[in-house]
């Protein structure tokens, strides 16, 4: 009798303790959760206020003829139909942007990997070279475009002057519709330093033993590069390609400044997607149409990112 009483007393105490512990634990957990929410709340508010709700508005707005002043009428798929069947400038801008992305993304990736491998050595003064190559990456904005407009000037620009020394008469770059986009792609290459630094940091994390054993096996520089270096940095190449594809689709400022306020340059050869969208939204005030364009842009970027993610397992080594 006594024993069972004692036993049940124990049980009770244990249960009580467990209960107490559980209760205290949840209370602490709850408090902790509130703190967590408090700390991340600026992001949540910002996400809804500046991203999610605006995008929802854009989505709804893309089916309307909203133009700031008149009211918003629901016009169904008219905007999208107009985009693909009537608006020739839309097709031009899409082509220009695709052209730019197709050259800019791979060239930047190759250029920055090349530079990073080149500068990943232990030589005296290598830091100075790294600084020189990185500096242009942090310089951006109008000043840089002004500088490049001068460099690319057909008669007095530095680039054509240098070309003339080797007997090539350079193109008229920003004044020739054939050469405007290559000129811009060339200009963008000047900022490969940012990605270069990213690769450089990764290259320094590649285990030295890999190279040592490759050398023992008699593998030369090229074989080492293609069989060790490149596979080891594929995750960063992947990250770089995904982000620079998104970035390249956003090309706007360069074209806006270099074509005298967004006119699109000779024969609309620099009328990029975002420039066209900008002109529709803030010059012509066809907000509904521009919002429809922004939705298409979002779809394009989203599907390219998705394709990148799907293709990744084929070449990215984790």
């Amino acid at each position: 009798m006594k024993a069972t009483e004692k036993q049940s007393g124990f049980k009770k105490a244990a249960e009580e303790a467990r209960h107490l512990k559980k209760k205290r634990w949840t209370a602490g957990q709850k408090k902790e959760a509130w703190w967590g929410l408090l700390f991340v709340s600026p992001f949540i508010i910002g996400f809804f206020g500046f991203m999610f709700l605006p995008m929802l508005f854009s989505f709804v707005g893309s089916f309307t003829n909203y133009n700031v002043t008149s009211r918003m009428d629901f016009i169904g798929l008219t905007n999208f139909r107009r985009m693909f069947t009537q608006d020739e400038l839309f097709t031009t801008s899409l082509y220009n942007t695709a052209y730019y992305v197709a050259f800019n993304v791979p060239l930047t990736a190759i250029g920055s990997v090349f530079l990073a491998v080149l500068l990943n050595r232990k030589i005296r003064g290598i830091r100075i070279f790294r600084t020189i190559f990185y500096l242009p990456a942090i310089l951006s904005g109008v000043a840089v475009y002004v500088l490049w407009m001068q460099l690319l000037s057909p008669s007095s620009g530095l680039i054509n002057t240098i070309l003339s020394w080797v007997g090539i008469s350079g193109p008229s770059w920003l004044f020739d519709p054939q050469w405007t986009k290559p000129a811009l792609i060339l200009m963008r290459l000047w900022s490969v330093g940012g990605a270069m630094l990213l690769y450089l940091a990764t290259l320094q994390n590649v285990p030295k033993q890999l190279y040592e054993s490759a050398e023992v096996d008699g593998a030369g520089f090229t074989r080492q590069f293609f069989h060790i270096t490149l596979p080891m940095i594929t995750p960063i190449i992947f990250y770089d390609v995904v982000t620079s594809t998104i970035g390249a689709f956003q090309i706007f400022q360069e074209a806006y400044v270099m074509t005298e306020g967004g006119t699109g340059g000779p024969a609309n050869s620099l009328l990029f997607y975002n420039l066209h969208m900008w002109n529709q939204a803030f010059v012509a005030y066809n907000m509904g149409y521009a919002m429809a364009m922004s939705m298409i842009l979002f779809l394009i970027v989203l599907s390219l990112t998705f394709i990148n993610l799907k293709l990744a397992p084929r070449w990215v080594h984790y």
Partner: protein
Amino acid sequence: MLGTSLKPMEEIVRFPPTIFPETIQWSNYIETVQAFPFFRYMRNTMLITVFVVAGNVLSNSFIAYGFAKISFPGKNILFALVLATMMVPGFVTMIPQYILFTQIGWVGTYLPLIVPSFFGSAFFIFLMRQFYMSISNELVEAAKIDGANHLYIWSRLMLPLTKPALITVGIMSFNGAWNDFLGPLLYITREERYTLQIGLQSFQSQSTTQWNYLMAGATLVMIPTVLLFFFAQKYFIDGMDLTGGTKG
């Protein structure tokens, strides 16, 4: 560029062009500063930049602390959402944001340029979170046992400890704000509120042939960024290293 900014106009139009100026004309700088309200634009730009840097440093440090040091339900999903916002092109949200700021009467003021920086940005949150991860959790636990709450831990313990990362975020957002062209182009309507980037652009479209003045102006605009780069190189490189070391 420096060369051209110091050349007299006659030398620029001469053919073949010279790479180094034959006659150095420092007065180009003085005339440029007088040709457009350079100092007013600089004051405007500095005002915006100070607020944007403060906003980015504070908000991202705050948000990242929540993600790194506090456990709460749904944290991982929310962090995935942070990363996903990096994939949304700015142009997709630009038009509705503009409509929003028009509706609340902020267009023409600096508020649309400043206020969003107080709500965090994905890349900086990521960067700061990585840095917090390198700080031991025991520190937070010990402080909690001593009765400190998270606000206290963040402001008194973490802010001093994460100084290098804060400086990196600060420098990057300084550069972003100083070089921002799109934001001011969209939201600033009155000429006396122009920033340097907009000022330079309108100066450029007004005087396409005055290369020497234009180059002098461009040089002046770039000086702060270049100076900052040379003084704080380490932090630029650390910022990249952080992403490089952890993403790989």
